[in-house]
C-alpha cells in the first residue's frame, strides 16, 4: 500500500506544479500595481511599487519563491492588503471562522441526510419515498443565494422581531473573534454561526439525501439482502445492520471528498454574512489582486484536495477488502 501511496504522490507532483503555475499566470493577466497607487503616480512610483511587491523579478524567480514557501509550508510572504501580516497569519486567522461553519454543517448534513435516506429507502416506491425525493428535487432547484436571503430575513430579522430578542446576529461583529473558548461555544457560535450552518444544511440536504438514497436502494437489491431475508432476519436488522454497514463505503467516500471544502469555507455564506473566513478572504484577495494570499490559499486548497482524494482511495481499500490498490 505504501508503494501505491508513494506512486500516487509522485504522479501528482506535475499536477500540483501546474496548479501553482496556472494560478500565478491567471493572476498576472492584470497588473496589480495600478490599483495600489494614486491616479497621478509617476513612472518612478510604478517602478518602485513593482520592486516593493516583488513583481519586478523574472517570473521563474517568483515561481521559485512561491514553490519554496509551499515546499517548506512556511507562508511567510507579506500580504499586500494587510501590510505587516504574513500570509500564514492571515490563513490561521481565517481558518477558525470557516471551520466553525463547515464542520458542524458537514456533520449535521451527513447525519440528517442518512436518516432521511434510510426512511426513504425503507418506504421505497411508496408515497412517503416519492414525496421525499420530490421535495429534494424541489429544494435543489432554488438558488443558494435565495436560501441565504430568505434565511437571513426570516431567521435573523423576522424571528428577532417576533421574539423581541436577538436570537441570531445579522452581521458578523469583529469583536467576537477575541472571545475565549468557553464564551465562543456558549454565546458566539450559536449567535453568529448557527444560522449560516442551518442554511447550508438545508441547501446540502437535497443533494446528499438523493445520493444516499440511491446508494441504499442499490444495496437493497444485492444478494446478501436476499440471503438475510431468507434466513429470517427482521427488516430493521437488515436495514441497520446489513445494509447500512455496506452502504458506509460510498458514504465515507462522499464525506472524505468534501474535506477540502471544509477549509475553503462556503464562499457565498461567508461573503454574504461578512464572516472573515477563508472563502471570503480569497474572494476579496482575488478582487483586489492580493497575489500572495491567492497563490498560497489555492496552493493549500489544492494540496488538501489531492491528499483527500488519495485518502479516499486508501480508505476504500481498507473498508472494502475486495478493492486492491494497484
Amino acid at each position: 500500500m505504501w508503494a501505491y501511496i508513494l506512486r500516487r504522490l509522485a504522479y501528482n507532483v506535475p499536477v500540483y506544479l501546474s496548479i501553482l503555475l496556472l494560478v500565478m499566470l491567471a493572476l498576472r493577466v492584470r497588473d496589480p500595481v495600478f490599483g495600489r497607487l494614486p491616479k497621478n503616480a509617476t513612472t518612478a512610483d510604478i517602478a518602485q511599487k513593482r520592486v516593493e511587491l516583488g513583481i519586478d523579478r523574472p517570473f521563474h524567480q517568483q515561481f521559485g519563491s512561491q514553490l519554496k514557501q509551499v515546499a517548506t509550508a512556511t507562508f511567510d510572504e507579506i500580504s499586500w492588503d494587510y501590510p505587516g501580516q504574513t500570509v500564514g497569519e492571515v490563513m490561521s486567522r481565517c481558518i477558525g471562522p470557516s471551520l466553525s461553519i463547515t464542520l458542524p454543517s458537514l456533520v449535521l448534513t451527513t447525519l440528517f441526510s442518512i436518516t432521511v435516506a434510510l426512511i426513504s429507502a425503507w418506504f421505497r416506491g411508496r408515497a412517503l419515498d416519492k414525496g421525499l425525493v420530490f421535495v429534494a428535487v424541489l429544494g435543489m432547484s432554488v438558488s443558494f443565494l435565495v436560501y441565504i436571503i430568505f434565511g437571513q430575513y426570516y431567521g435573523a430579522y423576522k424571528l428577532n422581531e417576533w421574539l423581541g430578542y436577538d436570537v441570531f446576529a445579522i452581521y458578523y461583529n469583529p469583536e467576537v473573534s477575541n472571545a475565549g473558548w468557553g464564551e465562543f461555544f456558549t454565546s458566539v457560535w450559536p449567535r453568529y454561526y448557527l444560522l449560516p450552518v442551518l442554511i447550508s444544511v438545508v441547501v446540502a440536504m437535497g443533494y446528499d439525501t438523493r445520493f444516499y438514497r440511491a446508494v441504499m436502494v442499490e444495496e437493497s437489491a444485492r444478494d446478501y439482502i436476499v440471503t438475510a431475508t431468507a434466513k429470517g432476519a427482521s427488516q430493521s436488522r437488515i436495514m441497520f445492520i446489513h445494509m447500512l454497514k455496506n452502504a458506509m463505503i460510498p458514504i465515507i467516500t462522499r464525506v472524505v471528498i468534501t474535506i477540502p471544502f471544509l477549509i475553503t469555507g462556503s464562499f457565498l455564506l461567508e461573503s454574504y454574512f461578512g464572516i472573515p473566513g477563508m472563502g471570503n478572504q480569497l474572494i476579496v484577495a482575488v478582487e483586489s489582486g492580493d497575489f500572495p494570499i491567492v497563490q498560497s490559499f489555492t496552493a493549500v486548497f489544492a494540496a488538501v484536495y489531492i491528499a483527500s482524494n488519495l485518502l479516499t482511495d486508501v480508505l476504500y481499500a481498507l473498508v472494502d477488502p475486495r478493492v486492491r490498490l494497484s
Partner: protein
Amino acid sequence: MTNSSSDSRALRKFLRHKPAVVASFIIAAYAVVAMLLLFTNMITMDDTLQRVGPETIPGFSSVQNPEKRLEDAEWLLDRIDTLAGREDPRAALDSFRDLGVRHVAEIPIEDLQQRVEEGWEIYDRLAEVEDLTAAVNGTLNSPDAPTGEVVLADLQQLELKLDELLAPMTAKEKSTRWFEMLFGTDRQGRSIFYRSVYSIRVAVLVGLITGLLSVTIGTIAGLLSGYFGGWVDNLITWLYSTFASIPNIVLLILLAFMFDGGHIDEPLNRWTGGLLKWLIGGRLDETLIPVYIAFTATFWIGPCRVIRGETLKIRELEYVQAATVMGFGRTRILLRHILPNVTYLMLINFSLLFIGAIKSEVILSFLGLGVKKGPSWGIMISQSKVEVINGFFWQIGTATVLMFFLVLAFNVLSDALQDVLDPKHV
C-alpha cells in the same frame, strides 16, 4: 444504443416517464421565449433598463397601503410639475419616458398646470393626516381627525387627477401597460416583468453555449484519451487533474476575474482578426464571453472524465476488437463504433451542465463577476437583497420562480435520461 430498435425502445421508455415529458415541454417553452427574445424585438434591453413608474410597486395590482399610494402620487406630481415649469415644457414633457408606454396628456400647458395644482391641493390635505393607514382603518384616536371614508375618497380623487394628467391609452397600450406592471417595479422603478423575462435569454444563452462547448471539448478529450492511451492519455489526464484539483468555485472565480474587463478576450479577438467576435457576438452577446470561457474551462472536466472511463471500457469490447481486426481505420472506429455509444453520456452531462451554468451565474453575478450588461436572474436576486429587508419580495420572487421552473425541469429531465439511458448509474 446504435441500432434503431433500441433507440425507439429508449424513446418509448422516456415517453412513459410523464414528469420528464412535462419537463421537456417546459424546457421547450423557455427555449421558444429565448428564441423570440434573441431574434425579435419583443422585449429589448432598453425596456429592461427603462423606468416604467414609481419604485417598488407590487405586482398583480395588489392593494397598497395608503402611505405608499400617496408617495407614488407625490412622485408623479413632482415630476410633471418640474417638467411643466421648464423653458420648453412641451419638449420636456414629450421626452418624459419614466412611465413606460404611458405619456403625459396632450393638453395646453396651462390646463396641465391647473390639474397639477388641483392635485397638490388634495395631496396637501392628505399629507397633513398623521397616520394614513390608521385613518383609513378608522383607528385614529383624535376628535377632529378625518374619517376613513373621507381619506379614502381623497386618495381616489387624487389618483383620478393623476390619471387625467396622462394621455388616455389605446387598447394596445393598455395591454402593454398590463404586462409592464404585472410583477410590479423594482427599486429603480423598472419593470420586473421585462427584466425577469428578458433574463431567460441570458440563462438559455449561458446554459446552451457553455453546455455545448463543455460537452464537445470534454467528449473529444475523453474519447482521444480513452481510445489512444499513451502520451495522449497522460497529457489529457494531467490537464484535467490540474483543473479538477482546484475547487470548482475557486477556479470559476479566478477565471472569471482573469477574463473580466476584456484583458484577454479583446487582445485575442484583435489577434485573430475579429474571429472571436464573429463567432460569439451580436445576438450571442460578446459581453458574456468572460462568463462563457470561465464556465467552459471549469465544466469540461466532468464529461471528459466520464467519457474517458466509458471509452476505456468500450475499447476492450469484442465488437471494437472485431472492427480493428477487420482493418477499419482508428478514426472510423472512434466515430462509428465508440462515439455513438457515449452519446447518452453527452446528453446526460449536457443536461447537468445546463443546471450548473444557470446556478453558477447567480453566484458570479452576486460577486460582481457575472453578467455585465442588462438583467439576469443572478443580478435580480442580488439586487433584491435590500428590497427583501424592506419586505418587498416581487423581484426576488419573480426571478426565483422563473429560474426554479427551468432548473426543476432540467433536474427532472436529467433524472429521466439517467434512468432511461444509464440504468446502472447510482
